[in-house]
């Protein structure tokens, strides 16, 4: 695992006592977590543990029901006693989403546009950028993810790995403070996983803050600064050192890691 020195920095992302309800069921229970600039954090856990929801709360695709989420200088505070109206929260959420990049498990490049147009769209529409400048930036980002030569293709002419790399470039074009990945490789054929992960490693080397919900344990172990293990809407354990991954304290973590190490990725996906 890589190490980052956090002394003297304040956290880029701070979750404090975050709760989230779906139909009165608490899917996130009092979650607190700080993530510093340049960190690469993996979130693991059995399916249904709330890890995707946590990610979606960080970029305000889901508005939290309690606690607070801070990304850079934008605060979504829903603690009791705070007097912020819901419409104000939504306004802030909209601003927040512009500074957070996200890549989903499902391939959702816009099929009616070319790869280049996909990457250019948000800068032009959301940020009001000149098309020429947006194109330049888009091509730079596509170059970074190795898709420059496919810039004029439509999504139906791309492999899954290429689509996910395109989605990363599309998010990067908005110059986000942080990149979120929700199981970005789970829908990929095994031979295509590597190309997506290597893009994330490169971004990490450049100092991009990244949070990834994943089942790729090897990647999580090798590339992450630390691994967050979640179960039943709670953070069970934060595994920050290599020996901790091999010898987790919590029994639930032990069981999950044992399973994930002994069986293949496919079985976890299916189970």
């Amino acid at each position, binding site marked *: 695992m890589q190490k980052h020195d956090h002394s003297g920095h304040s956290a880029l992302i701070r979750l404090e006592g975050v709760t989230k309800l779906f139909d009165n069921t608490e899917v996130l229970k009092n979650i607190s977590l700080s993530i510093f600039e340049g960190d690469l954090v993996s979130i693991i856990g059995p399916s249904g543990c709330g890890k995707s929801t946590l990610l979606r709360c960080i970029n305000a695709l889901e508005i939290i029901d309690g606690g607070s989420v801070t990304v850079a200088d934008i605060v979504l505070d829903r603690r009791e006693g705070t007097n912020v109206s819901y419409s104000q929260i939504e306004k802030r959420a909209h601003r927040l*989403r512009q*500074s957070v990049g996200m890549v*989903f498990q499902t391939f*959702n490049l*816009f099929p009616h546009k070319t790869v280049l147009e996909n990457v250019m769209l*948000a800068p032009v529409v959301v940020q009001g950028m000149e098309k020429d400048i947006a194109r330049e930036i888009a091509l730079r980002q596509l170059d970074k993810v190795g898709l420059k030569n496919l810039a004029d293709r439509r999504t139906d002419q791309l492999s899954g790995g290429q689509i996910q790399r395109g989605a990363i470039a599309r998010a990067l074009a*908005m110059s986000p403070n942080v990149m979120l990945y929700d199981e970005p490789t789970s*829908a990929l054929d095994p031979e*295509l996983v590597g190309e997506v992960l290597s893009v994330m490693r490169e971004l990490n080397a450049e100092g991009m803050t990244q949070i990834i919900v994943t089942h790729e344990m090897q990647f999580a172990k090798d590339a992450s600064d630390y691994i967050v293990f979640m179960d039943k809407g709670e953070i069970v354990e934060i595994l920050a050192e290599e020996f901790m991954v091999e010898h987790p304290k919590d029994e639930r973590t032990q069981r999950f890691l044992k399973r994930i190490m002994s069986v293949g990725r496919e079985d976890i996906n299916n189970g």
Partner: protein
Amino acid sequence: MVKKLILTIVLVLCTYPTFAQHVRPENIIRFGADARSGAPYCFADPHDPSKIKGFDVDIIHALAKVMNKRALFVQNSYEGLISGLGRNNYDVVIDGIVITPEHLAEVDFSSPYYVTHQTIVVPDNNTSIHSLEDCRGKKVGTLTGSEAFMFLEKFGGLTILSYEQEVSGYQDLLNGRIDAFIIDAPVAIYYVPTVKGLKIVGGEIDRLMYGVAVKKGSLVLRDELSAAIEKIKHNGELRKILEKWKLWNNNMAELTEDYAPSENEPTEYNSFVEAMNRSISWQERFDRYLTFLPMFGRAAWTTIVISIFSMMLAMAMGLILAIIRIYTPFKFLAVAYIEIVRGTPLLVQLLLIFYGLPNIGIKLDPFMAGVIGLGLNYAAFEAENYRAGLLSVPRAQYEAAKALGMTRWQSLRYVILPQSIRLVIPPITNDFISLLKDSSLVSMITIIDLTQQYNLLATTYYDYFGIGIQVALIYFIIGIPFVIVSRWTEKRIRQDGRLRRKRPGLKLIR
């Protein structure tokens, strides 16, 4: 896309005045009549169906001349003639309109220019009916909204069937669907000799006085017309016209105190009967159909233009409705609109817009009323097409747009809408083909579209069959390009879908 659509509609509305007759010099008197009224009032000349003729037409031209004006014909359906006056579609109505208390309540009349009566028409082989008394308990036909209709209702004891056009009445007389047909004598004089198997029986029923109708309160115009009528009564012009049409009768002799025997040959009458009785070969018939083509061409153009404008309105309005329904809290308004419009007949909507709205001060000319009626109706159906299209775009697409920081409107505009449009094109094209056919209903609001042209020609030649096939063919041919477009886009979308499914690793895209 939306901007372009709105722009197009605005441009279209700017060019709109070229479709309406707004220019009306002082020296023109516009007369409303229905060219389907048939001989001898106002009808398409069988020798040249692009020309309108009739004794009413001759009389109004003679009156206009006396008034130093030029008469200009405005086509209007017979039932709507009176209300058309109120809408200022024309200045006067002359089309065998009888001066009655009911009519006087709505319009003002000149002094009568013609006096006649009702007469009974029966099949040749009929021996039981000699007078109106004999008709009791039998089925009697007459024209919708005619003076005879009201007279027969008052008379009582009859089953009355009402007809839009006398030729349909004669046809039913021959088919045995009715026992007798009661109609103004001039009509009987003209058509009975041209229809084999019919005869006129009975005496003079009722006394009918025809007047020129003007808008209620247009007293100056009314008095000018009356003065002109007096003038042509006394200078012999009126008698000359009526004799030409074989319509001079005892009533007229009394009215003008001119009992001299007829001098003029009934040239118009002879020409009409000759044209109608001439049995023609298939070659001649075919040649005649060819002469219809320019008229059908113009009518087809009207049909196409109305359909296209209506569809543009429907597409713009439908999109707005679909967006309101899916994305706003005013969903119920859109749903109410869609359900009400889909749940009521298009014809009723058209009549309401054209004849009903003037009652609350909204007067639309026929073209505008037609486009708005069809457009608003089809908007309800297009809204549902758009809705299906918008909902078929996967939610993940909306989420991806949201995650990129787009507002709801931006995601709709740049991500959801462009993807759904492709899916919506085939059903919209199909709806356009239906609209092309439904546009035939605008013939009910005085527009001469293909259907109206068919009606005009068919009543003139008494040939619903041959001309009907011709007009059906024209509708069919107009629709073909759109059928092809629809099939082609449907096929393309199907192929796209198959391509996607085949590719490995792409299973989650739609």
